[in-house]
């Protein structure tokens, strides 16, 4: 069931068109990746959901109702530019944000302590934000977004700047929230992580949606793809002149090819053998990075 319905958003900043009729829906129970190049309109869209940006046109609804301040109480937000009070103790800070979202003092404090423990900050409740590392500040920021158990969680670049352990911890929480029936939207430029964590992906560019669907749908759509590895030709020069074949990625000798529908894979294999010993030759699905690049092109 779609819980967040974003419809026809338009917003100009002077001559710059930030949002150009942007529409998509976010369902509960799934993790939605919200992708796009820098300046595509991701942050403007997220701010618009929270009423932080005035729209020229468009409508944002939750379960069919316009988003108002009361409904935003049930949202959790982690903005791209992290923001916490530098000299406030972290548990006091999480409690404060919990209370701003309607929790009682006791609930906000106990849930805040639970989240800090879950995020690996047990014993540091009385530390001030500016005494923490960047990664731990990011964990506190996530705790402030989660403390009131929001129905809709909107996270702008939640994984940037984290070490692998931090990415695993926060990634697990993002997926867990969705599995518990919440709607989770997050943006990231780390496309491999998005592919692993997300169920649905929305890609925008110039304020418009250019691709939307489940990760499986997007990966299996489009033209056939081959992964070929030929000893002695790490740059895939052998494939450059094949008609109907485009080299999409070269990664450590692994050459990823996009084939036009009429191309015979046997002919491709023959060309590869002619260049050297073939150690890998397989059909594959599109990676999200390929979906992203192809959607933008």
């Amino acid at each position, binding site marked *: 069931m779609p819980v967040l319905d974003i419809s026809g958003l338009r917003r100009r900043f002077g001559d710059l068109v930030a949002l150009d009729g942007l529409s998509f829906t976010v369902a509960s129970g799934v993790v939605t990746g919200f992708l796009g190049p820098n300046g595509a309109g991701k942050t403007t869209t997220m*701010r618009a959901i*929270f009423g*932080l*940006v*005035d729209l020229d046109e468009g409508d944002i609804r939750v379960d069919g109702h316009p988003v*108002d*301040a*009361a409904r*935003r*109480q049930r*949202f959790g*937000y*982690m*903005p791209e*530019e*992290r*923001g*916490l*009070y*530098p000299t*406030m103790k972290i548990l006091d800070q999480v409690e*404060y*944000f919990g*209370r*701003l*979202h*309607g929790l*009682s003092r006791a609930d906000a404090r106990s849930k805040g302590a639970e989240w800090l423990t879950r995020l690996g900050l047990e014993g540091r409740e009385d530390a001030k934000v500016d005494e923490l590392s960047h990664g731990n500040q990011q964990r506190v*920021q996530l705790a*402030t*977004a989660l403390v009131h158990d929001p129905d809709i969680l909107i996270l702008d670049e939640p994984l940037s700047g984290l070490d692998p352990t931090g990415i695993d911890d926060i990634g697990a929480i993002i997926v867990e929230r969705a599995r518990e029936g919440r709607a989770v939207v997050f943006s990231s430029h780390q496309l491999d992580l998005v592919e692993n964590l997300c169920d649905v992906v929305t890609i925008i560019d110039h304020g418009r949606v250019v691709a939307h669907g489940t990760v499986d749908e997007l990966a299996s759509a489009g033209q056939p793809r081959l992964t070929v590895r030929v000893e002695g030709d790490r740059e895939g020069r052998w494939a450059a002149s094949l008609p109907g074949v485009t080299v999409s990625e070269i990664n450590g000798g692994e050459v990823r090819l996009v084939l036009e529908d009429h191309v015979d894979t046997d002919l491709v294999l023959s060309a590869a053998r002619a260049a050297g010993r073939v150690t890998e030759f397989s059909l594959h699905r599109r990676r999200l990075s390929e979906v992203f690049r192809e959607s933008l092109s």
Partner: protein
Amino acid sequence: MSLPRHVIAPAIAVLAASGALLRRSRRRQRSRNPRPASTREWTRHPVGLVAGREIRQRLRSRSFSISVLITVVAVAAIIVIPSFHHTSALRVRVGVAPGTPSATSALITRDAHALGVVTTITSFPSVSALESALHRSVDLAVLSSQELLTYGGLGASGSSGSNFLTSLSLSLGQASALSAAHLSPSQLQTLQSAHPFRIVALHPPTPRRSVDPLALVGVIVMFMMVNQYAQWILLGVMEEKSSRVVEVLLSGLRPVEMIGGKVSGIGFVALLQGGLTIASALIASYAVGSPLVQTHASWTLAALILWFLLGYVFYSWVFAAVGSMVERIDQAQSLALPFSLPLFAGYIYSIFEASSTTVSTLYRALAYFPPTALFAMPTLVSRGDVGPLGFSVSVAIDLVTTVLVARLAAGIYRRAILHTGSRVRWGDVLRRGR
């Protein structure tokens, strides 16, 4: 007794207007922003939560403790120090030689009382004994030879001692002359009960009004506090912008709730400091018998408190808007300067006017101009230079202006607060939309 009306009527009007504005604001908020019934109590209302955080943070800060200490000590010092220089009553030890007229002691006591001089009178058995006591145990000797002897005078010309000496000399001379005239008792009584002529001026000059020390001290303290707490608002808003926490806050709060909470919380802290300052001033005044505590002091004090609140709220919204446009202290200082000028000008002009005997027309006009009324109107009240109507009009102008300024400031805040990087231009924030 007109002063009570100066304050009571406007105070009722202020309370009524505030109540109406609050009810209207609540109705509008409920229609726009319905909240669960359990969150309607003040302590769980967003404005209350923001205010509570401000109060906790500010009361814990060292700057608040230092500021309160400085203000309390400074005000007490302003009251107490002048009392050290206050001259106590002059004490004169008078020795009377044998053979002086019988009315001598009565005349000494009468003249001393009239000039505020305290005397102790001692009769000596001989002139030689009196002369030998002079300077050691006697300051002034009255001799039967119609002479007054002192060792070196009783003070400089114009002092109470010198005046007492001149007055006593005349009194004793007149008494001696009357005694020598051998008048009948009724003639003597007629002369002694003589009254001076009444002096009547057909065009009397404007009476010189004394400076009200409470208004003077009040204006100084009010300037210090409004300036300090408005700066706190500015720096608090700027800190929330530069630390980016404001984006998270505004995802759950409206800008007007955000600023309203900040203004309320810091306002509470300001009132706390004001209360401590007033308490210390009253204690110091009663302790040293300062003229600060006069008959009408309570009404001047009420006017000062009312105008402190009005002025603080007015400047808080202005400085909140300025704080939302900057991220660095140097930017804040340059942008806030034009808005600080009326505050400084009104303060300096009020110090000048509170110390003068007459009030200029320009100053009266400034009492109706919200940026300067906070200083000018209490000063006029303390002098009895404004009626209830004028006071009420000034309060009404200030309230209406503050509401308009608050709306404009909230608009500027919501357009500017998320703009980071370069300083926000006025043209950008005065346009509609964000």
